[in-house]
């Protein structure tokens, strides 16, 4: 079995590792250049990142996304999902390609409009969970294929959960959602629209939320400790500020001669990038500048592996696929002793079948078209025949008429000739008698 094969390789590797010792180099070898090579390769390949935003409508999710990535993903012409009323929870994804300094990032934003908006919100987290699972499954299938030259990574790397700034604590919906999703994706809770709260209220609120998170044993994304002391200090500071209170805006306002992004109120301007006003810069630095790779790694190593082991355990433990999946996975587990070559044969056969099917379909279509054309031709032939017949009949009728006329004419002619003859005879007779008379007269 494929899995055993891999496991045996690992066992061999283990025996090799034991004898490793650190040796000192006696000259410059040059593999210190390795990170640069990795860097150049990855820059060429480009990066992918999938970010999911969850929260009730009206919490400023679209605005925050626009502010984070300094783009207008949701603008006036293409308003964010929250501008359209939804009756059920939908999961929508939008892709955007961002280029900066030669590095290109394919950013996918997954939005969940309708979350928590209905009167009855039971199971409104189900579409979200289904989406995350389906993306993990796609990756699992792609990973299990024999031919895996292109493996797009569409798994959700980070889920930003927006908490309404009530100032009290977490709502039952927040707790339920986070409890169900902390095993599947990196959850980062945020306090939305933080300019509603005064600094004291914000502190109390944060403490309350962290207390409740610990109470319910929710595992939010934890920043990894690094070996560098300075970095650790920074990380500890970030940890104290969790959950981050953010304000989003892309409107530029002038404050004291400086142009800043912020929100203009009659009593002042709340600046988005001011660390004393809100934690937006912390979020942005953390999400983009320092921990993006770590988020991807944790997704790959922890959440995805969780999913994978659960999935495969469910399949192999019974020998029958208990889950509702189709495709490679089913064949993978139930048919034992499948070597990669055999699988390749499978795939080829599949491909051939597909081609055959397409061929058959095309043939069908072709036949149908031919039939149609034939029918059309027949019809036009019949039509022509009919017309021909009609014309012939017309002709005959005319002929008959003509014949009739001729007959009549002949009759008349015969009559007339007969009459002429009679007249002539009469004339002859008359002349004869006259001659006779003349002769007779002469005698007198």
């Amino acid at each position, binding site marked *: 079995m494929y899995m055993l094969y891999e496991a045996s390789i690992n066992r061999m590797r283990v025996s090799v590792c034991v004898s490793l010792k650190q040796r000192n180099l006696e000259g410059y070898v040059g593999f210190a250049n390795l990170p640069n090579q990795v860097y150049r390769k990855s820059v060429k390949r480009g990066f992918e990142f999938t970010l999911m935003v969850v929260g009730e409508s009206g*919490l400023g999710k679209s605005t925050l996304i626009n502010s984070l990535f300094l783009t207008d993903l949701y603008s006036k012409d293409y308003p964010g999902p929250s501008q359209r009323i939804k009756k059920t929870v939908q999961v929508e994804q939008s892709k955007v390609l961002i280029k900066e300094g030669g590095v290109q990032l394919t950013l996918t934003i997954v939005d969940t409009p309708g979350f928590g908006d209905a*009167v009855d919100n039971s199971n409104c987290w189900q579409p979200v969970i289904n989406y995350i699972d389906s993306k993990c499954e796609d990756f699992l299938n792609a990973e299990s294929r024999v031919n895996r030259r292109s493996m797009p990574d569409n798994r959700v790397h980070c889920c930003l959960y927006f908490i309404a700034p009530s100032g009290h604590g977490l*709502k039952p919906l927040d707790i339920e959602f986070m409890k169900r999703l902390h095993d599947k994706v990196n959850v980062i809770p945020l306090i939305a629209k933080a300019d509603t709260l005064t*600094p004291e209220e914000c502190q109390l609120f944060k403490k309350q939320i962290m207390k409740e998170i610990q109470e319910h044993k929710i595992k939010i994304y934890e920043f990894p400790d690094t070996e560098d002391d300075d970095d650790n200090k920074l990380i500890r500071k970030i940890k104290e500020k969790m959950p981050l209170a953010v304000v989003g805006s892309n409107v530029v306002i002038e404050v004291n001669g400086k142009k800043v992004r912020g929100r203009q*109120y009659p009593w002042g301007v709340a600046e988005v990038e*001011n660390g004393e006003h809100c934690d937006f810069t912390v979020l942005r630095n953390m999400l983009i500048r320092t921990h993006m790779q770590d988020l991807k790694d944790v997704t790959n190593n922890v959440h995805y592996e969780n999913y994978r082991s659960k999935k495969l355990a469910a399949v192999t433990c019974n020998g029958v696929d208990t889950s509702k999946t189709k495709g490679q996975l089913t064949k993978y587990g139930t048919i034992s002793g499948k070597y990669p070559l055999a699988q390749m044969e499978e795939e080829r056969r599949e491909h051939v079948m597909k081609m055959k099917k397409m061929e058959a379909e095309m043939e069908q279509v072709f036949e149908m078209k031919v039939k149609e054309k034939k029918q059309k031709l027949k019809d036009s032939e019949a039509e022509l025949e009919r017309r021909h017949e009609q014309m012939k009949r017309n002709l005959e009728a005319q002929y008959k008429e003509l014949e009739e006329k001729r007959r009549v004419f002949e009759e008349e002619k015969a009559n007339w000739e007969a009459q002429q003859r009679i007249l002539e005879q009469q004339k002859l007779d008359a002349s004869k008698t006259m001659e006779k008379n003349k002769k007779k007269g002469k005698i007198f």
Partner: protein
Amino acid sequence: RADRPHGHGLSSSHNSSGGSTLLGYIGIDTIIEQMRKKTMKTGFDFNIMVVGHSGLGKSTLVNTLFKSHVSRKSAGWARDEKIPKTVEIKAVSHVIEEGGVKMKLTVVDTPGFGDQINNDNCWEPISKYINEQYEKFLKEEVNITRKKRIPDTRVHCCIYFISPTGHFLRQLDTEFMKRLSHSVNIIPVIAKADTMTLEERQEFKQRVRKELEVSGIEFYPQKEFDEDMEDKSDNDKIREAMPFAVVGSDKEYQVNGKRVLGRKTAWGIVEVENPNHCEFAQLRDFLIRSHLQDLKEVTHNIHYETYRAKRLNENGEYYNQ
């Protein structure tokens, strides 16, 4: 007129419609003064209910409205209190006095409204409570020996807090208001208005008003109860400005040498009573200074009468026996 001494110098005239101009000062206008004295002695009741899901600043607003700590927020209500599993109705009464006038103010709070995952029928406990108060009053009225002054626990005004999402009304909001606008005076307000900038506020208000119109929700002051042109023009102005975008606070700060109620943020102080910052002052004037009595009257003459007619029709046989 003949017995009147002409020395008073007042002309006599007699309208054929029945009204007559007075020939001397009688003193009918002192009745206002008498009423005032009586009311001051007896005091009057006002029952206000606040509805909205938790964290919208209901308790703070009520405290700010009546400039005293009448809401449970101050009564040592610790934040450790869990959100109740069903909607509870908590009524707290206080007696406040101003200028010799005593008012027994009852604040009815509804914790747990809209906080659950499944909020189906969360308006039912509230509807039941309102009808129970009407029932109590009806029973007292129908008694053979009535009390001199029936205690009025009917809800005169229900302030409904709309969450400042900036987009639309939530489904729960429209459901609640649709079902209760015919049994109680509903005044919708936009809570925590300091979340939105002025433009966002205007847009949101317009959208909310349109939605309320489309759903056929008649909030107080209802158009059908305007009595005359003056009322109508006043109320029209108020209806145009509703729902009021309010901010509540019970802390005072120093601004330009004055002590004002407000909220202090890192970028400025939101003044609660400044009409440029929010519409709290408008709401307070409307609710307390001009329409308090009208709220009570509409509740008594219209909502209560509707309930009474319905009940008496149901129990027609009982009362006829």
